[in-house]
């Protein structure tokens, strides 16, 4: 009964590079009456001028606010009347877009994406509306213990590296950004070269590519190359453990981050770190950390670890939401686990569990058009090859306990951590 190969590969992904440098990926799913589009331009918040942090995010939020031919309401009327969705955002390295529609509305969506990327107007009145929304967002965020702990960690850990910067900006930088800043960024960095568009759903791949070609071919190649980031400082753990606290009043719970270095996405350590991290703070109810902090000692509702393997560097964080009175105990338990993780190889049974987990979950992650599109973009971004997910089981199975221990020792030193807390300190503490 089951004839489905749910993992995409070179035999069912169509990949074409247009003459102006746009890469198109398409994969059909004829069970679905709709399509998903995801894609990016290779420019992001890392290119924000030093005194204009938040520019890429601010600009991405203004893209759909008006173009040479359409105003804000014409754009949204077209999308919402079709029950479609389209949004733009910015990350450290990319301007991203994501949309979905009934399959028959794909040309409409592509035309809008092209219009918005090529001819944004950045109307002043719309910029002011978005500015107010971003400022309110920053004000809300300043009260969020989890996010403030995260920002504080990145700043301390990455130091002089651009990843230390808060991509969302500060109230001051958001206040200072002008329409001219947006236009300058757009003119300098927006172009088809290096752009990726991925379409998944109820459409023939060849037709999807043809639709993209028809709409995007007139976009001429970028006038100038984008800056390279080849000579950035190497990020390492601090010489000794540092503790930082962000005081936010009247909070019942404190957020805790214990962080250290991690491999970048293309590091040879990446897969060993991915499996090791799962054992440490993800598998089941958040791995070893969740077991000791939450299950055995009831100190937190959430406790686990995560790996941020970005293109130029990486970090590795353990996080937990803990009552202020239990912070020291939670910290003690976490440090013991880190010590164990860097001193002894993981158990064979633990490795086997997480290998099965990573291999088994792929079909679930890829059941929807959006899930497949996410994975296709990931393959393209890191040049993993179109058969990466078909070969994935072999890659995952080849990681050994010794490799995980070696990777843990390479990146983690339990005496050189960055520890951040955010919340309300108890009197006397």
């Amino acid at each position, binding site marked *: 009964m089951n004839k489905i190969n749910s993992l995409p590969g070179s035999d069912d992904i169509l990949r074409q590079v247009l003459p102006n440098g746009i890469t198109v990926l398409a994969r059909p799913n004829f069970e679905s009456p*709709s399509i998903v589009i995801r894609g990016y331009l290779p420019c992001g918040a890392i290119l924000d001028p030093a005194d204009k942090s938040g520019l890429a995010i601010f600009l991405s939020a203004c893209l759909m606010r008006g173009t040479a031919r359409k105003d804000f309401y014409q754009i949204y009327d077209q999308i919402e009347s079709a*029950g479609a969705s389209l949004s733009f955002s910015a990350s450290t390295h990319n301007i991203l877009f994501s949309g979905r529609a009934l399959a028959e509305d794909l040309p409409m969506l592509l035309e809008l994406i092209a219009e918005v990327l090529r001819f944004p107007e950045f109307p002043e009145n719309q910029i002011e509306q978005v500015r107010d929304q971003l400022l309110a967002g920053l004000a*809300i965020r*300043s009260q969020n213990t989890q996010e403030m702990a995260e920002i504080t960690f990145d700043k301390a850990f990455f130091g002089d590296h651009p990843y230390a910067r808060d991509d969302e900006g500060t109230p001051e930088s958001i206040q200072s950004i002008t329409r001219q800043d947006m236009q300058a960024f757009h003119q300098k960095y927006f172009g088809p070269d290096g752009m990726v568009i991925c379409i998944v759903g109820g459409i023939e791949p060849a037709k999807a590519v043809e639709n993209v070609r028809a709409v995007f071919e007139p976009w001429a190649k970028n006038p100038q190359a984008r800056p390279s980031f080849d000579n950035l400082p190497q990020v390492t753990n601090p010489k000794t453990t540092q503790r930082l606290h962000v005081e936010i009043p009247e909070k*019942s*719970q404190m957020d805790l981050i214990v962080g250290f270095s991690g491999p970048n996405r293309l590091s040879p350590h990446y897969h060993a770190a991915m499996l090791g991290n799962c054992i440490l703070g993800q598998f089941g109810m958040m791995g070893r950390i969740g077991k000791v902090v939450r299950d055995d000692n009831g100190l937190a509702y959430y406790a686990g670890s995560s790996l941020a393997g970005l293109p130029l560097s990486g970090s590795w964080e353990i996080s937990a939401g803990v009552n202020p009175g239990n912070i020291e105990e939670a910290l003690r338990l976490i440090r013991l686990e880190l010590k164990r993780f860097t001193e002894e190889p993981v158990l064979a049974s633990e490795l086997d569990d997480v290998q099965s987990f990573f291999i*088994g979950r792929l079909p*679930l992650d890829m059941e929807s058009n959006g899930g497949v599109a996410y994975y296709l973009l990931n393959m393209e971004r890191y040049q993993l090859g179109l058969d990466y997910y078909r070969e994935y089981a072999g890659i995952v199975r080849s990681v050994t306990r010794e490799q995980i221990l070696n990777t843990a020792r390479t990146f983690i030193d339990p005496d050189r951590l960055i520890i951040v807390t955010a919340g309300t300190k108890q009197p006397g503490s």
Partner: protein
Amino acid sequence: MTENILRTTLDNGLQIMLKEIHTAPIISHWVWYRVGSRNELTGLTGISHWAEHMQFKGTPKYPAGALDKAISRDGGTWNAFTYIDWTAFYATMPADKIGLPIDLEADRMHNSLYLPDEVASERTVIISEREGSENEPLFRLEEAIREAAFERHPYRNEIIGSKADLQTMTRDDLFAHYQQHYAPNNAVLAMAGDFEAERMLDHLKEVYKDIPARKIERHPILPEGPITGEKRISLTGPGETTYLNMVWRAPEGKNADVFSLAILDSILTGPSSLNMFGGGGTSNRTSRLYRALIDSQIAIAVSGDYTTTIDPYLYTISAILHPEHNPEEAVQVVDAELERIRQGKISAAELAKAVKQARALFAYGTENITNQAYWLGHAEMFDTYGWFENFLPSLEKVTVTDVIRIAEDYLADDRRVIGVYAPQTEGSAQ
């Protein structure tokens, strides 16, 4: 639209809903219990949610931790939810591994241990979950609003429970709650995915044949009518952001007025997605209140919320205010829009747009097998699955007159709670 669903009830009262979907080698398995915070008594608020946590703490066959491990090992995803009306447990797995969640879900329907040590450590986990929520201004605001919107109905209680109850509830309270409500005749088992329904039914009969029905004692719960008068709640706290929630009594899930309310909500604040798992929604930039509140920069965000429940619950319009405007201005804008609707200033084209949006969102939701299995069971909690099957046709039947009547009957300005969370200023410190 009637889909091919196998529906049956076993001799022990377990209701079964099976839907074959062969688009991906995946199966989603759900067990829904007809118990939630609605069924809780004074002094025991939060007990349904805590019992849900204890269901992960082991049986003799599957000790604590073994369950997680077994599901995760196979690449599955699983979780549970406690709501006001129900508690649900799900696992979505590669199709050839579904035997495990079927077996353990049946096992923990009657063999959970509720060991005292596990209860003790979970007490602090749940208090910690509550404290995490308390960090959010909106949690505090919604808690206060619910207490004002219901005089005695248990919907006034927070699902997670009051801190005092969480500190005093005992292992025996929890175990009694488990024995009282976790029974085949109080449950719906719903599955969607890559299986043959008849063969699956045979398997389920075998798995559940020795679990007996129980007598379920239900204390009467009287629904409440409209909120009487206009009540105002005002909270202050740290931060710089003002939140406004306007709340009215909404029709219960099986009341046909729900569809008219859905259309009105879509016109006012944009379409709500039915897709709890995947699929996503659309933006609300062309909705009336977005245009009226955000264009004028009185607010920076607006949304609407209603949900399908056993007894009449709440419809909420929420706004995050622009720092230079006050909540009263936003209330006036909302009132003016509602008044326009009551006066009949609403077009058939607006209704048609709301229906088209709903149809697209509905189509997105069919991509996801977990989402489809969710609706098989969820609709049974407040009505029957027919509610979901007839969702789009029911929306298409809504007329302009129906929408006007909803604005008149339900969203009146003397039947509501207006809640404001405002930043603390020097004069307003609590």
